[in-house]
């Protein structure tokens, strides 16, 4: 499936190519090398496990940004039994960098909101590389309010390199749009489950990322700024992004430890892009489990617990 090879995957890809060649050779020449093949395949599997169990933060970030990584739409297609996409903020326009809609996951009626990246060059431009404008956040809020009105839970999928830094975005109040969402989301009287499925960059991610449960897929990153941005400011050198990723501690494991997220979701071996269906199945399983738990809470309890959750975040001396 993936033709795009990450640097650290090269030994695996190399080995797999060798296996493929041997298999072709054995078939064409009718040579019996099943045992050798099996050994090599086991070796490849082990190699993949080894490599993926020892990924550095920077390497995980590469997986999160893999061009074949499943995006919101890929998951929605697989986890939703019906989905009515809704468009526009009713004030300025529609933002294709965020998709929002209502539908069903199994027999549960839910609202689903997610950042959306594009795959081809044309799609990438259309989706603005998953970088929303204010109208995207306002559309998201409109759909969330609709969910609240009809007492339906909300699922948010985060995958953005950041809210778009541009003239129009500033003119239309990027900061206000994000701030408003934070303000409103903290008080929504329905359950919210948030999952970081790729990149979680700063306010652009958090703008649809307040939840009762916040989960991260295993190979994703989430922080206050992109490592490149951090490096450009604190190192005055954007090539120090790797160090910045290490210093800010941006992975699911890090954020679990810091108490920012509640769970990490294990991805198929080799990353979510190796198996969309399996990734979506696991994601759906987690969403349903979280919704089951949250459903037992009264709206007041839900809102109070949500505020307490964010209240507890922070480290200081007193």
């Amino acid at each position, binding site marked *: 499936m993936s033709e795009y090879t990450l640097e650290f995957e090269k030994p695996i890809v190399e080995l797999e190519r060798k296996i493929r060649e041997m298999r072709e050779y054995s078939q064409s020449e009718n040579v019996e090398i099943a045992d050798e093949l099996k050994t090599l395949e086991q070796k490849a599997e082990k190699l993949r496990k080894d490599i993926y169990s020892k990924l550095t933060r920077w390497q995980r970030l590469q997986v999160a940004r893999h061009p074949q990584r499943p995006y919101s739409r890929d998951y929605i297609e697989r986890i939703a039994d019906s989905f009515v996409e809704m468009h526009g903020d009713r004030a300025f326009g529609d933002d294709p960098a965020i998709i929002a809609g209502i539908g069903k996951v199994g027999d549960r009626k839910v609202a689903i909101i997610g950042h959306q990246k594009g795959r081809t060059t044309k799609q990438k431009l259309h989706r603005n590389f998953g970088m929303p404008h204010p109208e995207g956040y306002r559309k998201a809020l409109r759909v969330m309010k609709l969910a609240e009105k009809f007492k339906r839970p909300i699922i948010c999928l985060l995958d953005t390199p950041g809210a778009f830094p541009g003239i129009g975005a500033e003119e239309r109040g990027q900061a206000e749009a994000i701030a408003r969402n934070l303000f409103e989301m903290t008080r929504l009287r329905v359950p919210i489950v948030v999952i970081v499925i790729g990149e979680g960059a700063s306010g652009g991610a958090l703008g649809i990322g307040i939840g009762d449960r916040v989960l991260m897929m295993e190979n994703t990153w989430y922080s206050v700024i992109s490592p490149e941005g951090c490096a450009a400011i604190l190192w005055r050198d954007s090539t120090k992004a790797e160090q910045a990723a290490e*210093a800010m*501690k941006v992975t699911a494991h*890090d954020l679990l430890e810091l108490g920012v997220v509640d769970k990490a979701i294990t991805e198929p071996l080799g990353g979510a892009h190796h198996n969309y269906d399996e990734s979506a199945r696991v994601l759906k399983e987690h969403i349903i489990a979280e919704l089951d738990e949250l459903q037992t809470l009264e709206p007041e309890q839900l809102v109070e617990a949500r505020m307490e959750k964010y209240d507890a975040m922070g480290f200081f001396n007193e």
Partner: protein
Amino acid sequence: MSWFKRATKGIKPQTKKEMPELWLKCEPCGEIIYKKKLEENSHVCNKCGFHFRIQSADYIRYLLDDGQFDEFNANISSVDFLKFKATKKYSDQLKAAVKKTGHNDAIRTGFGKMFGHEVVMSIMDFSFIGGSMGSVVGEKIARAADEALNRKLPLIIISASGGARMMEGAISLMQLAKTSARLAKLSENGLPFISIVTDPTTGGVTASYAMLGDVILAEPGALIGFAGPRVIKQTIGQDLPDGFQRAEFQLKHGFVDAVVPRDEMKEKIRDVLEFCSDGAQSSLPNGELSNEEVEKLAAIDLPLAGDLDQEQSN
């Protein structure tokens, strides 16, 4: 005033070293201003109206009755829980900032009065690591909002910040959520929150409390935005229009209610407080002043403030 102008012409600073002591240069207009005179004029250039960046102590003096600030939670301080190191160690940066500013972090919170109205006042110091918001700023705002809620007082936050504090990673991002949650609760309980936005306020602070005021007032010329101008310029690869992201730009686009010169800010806030507290005033059980007393005090303070203005414009 005339003596002052003469003096400016007569005395030319001999060395660069000498200048910061007594004289300041107004960058936009080039005017060399006697520091004491600048302080008397709320740190606003008397020639071009440029608003110099000032410290929390200055705002306390300019905005609160008798400069009285009953600070709380002053002892909360930051910890380097990520052991963060870029070109400098975060722990060293913190030490240096505390030494430089005399404060434990980038915000101070406390009680004060404005024309007799008791308020919870929170003031950011840009000089403390760029006014960045980490755990301490988030916690102090959360607690300030709690004080406002418990005592049924208006909350005022004066923002000056480059954004969230990167050296605290995702935890600093979560302070946007933490503060917004508290403000939402405050709002639900019918208490007013006035956001005062000063130069500069960008990033995470704009994307949370600075833009969430029931009323948002900005100082003239203040840079207010989500992304910094440098990032935008790099992203779009073109020059930014004049006045982009300034307070007047935000006014034009509908994101601040008014641009208010510093020497009029206190009165403008009072007008807002009076509107908000009319109904809520009766629910000020813990306030030390009755309505009557508040009005009396306001009446006493008003002409006094007017006198001061006259003195300054002489």
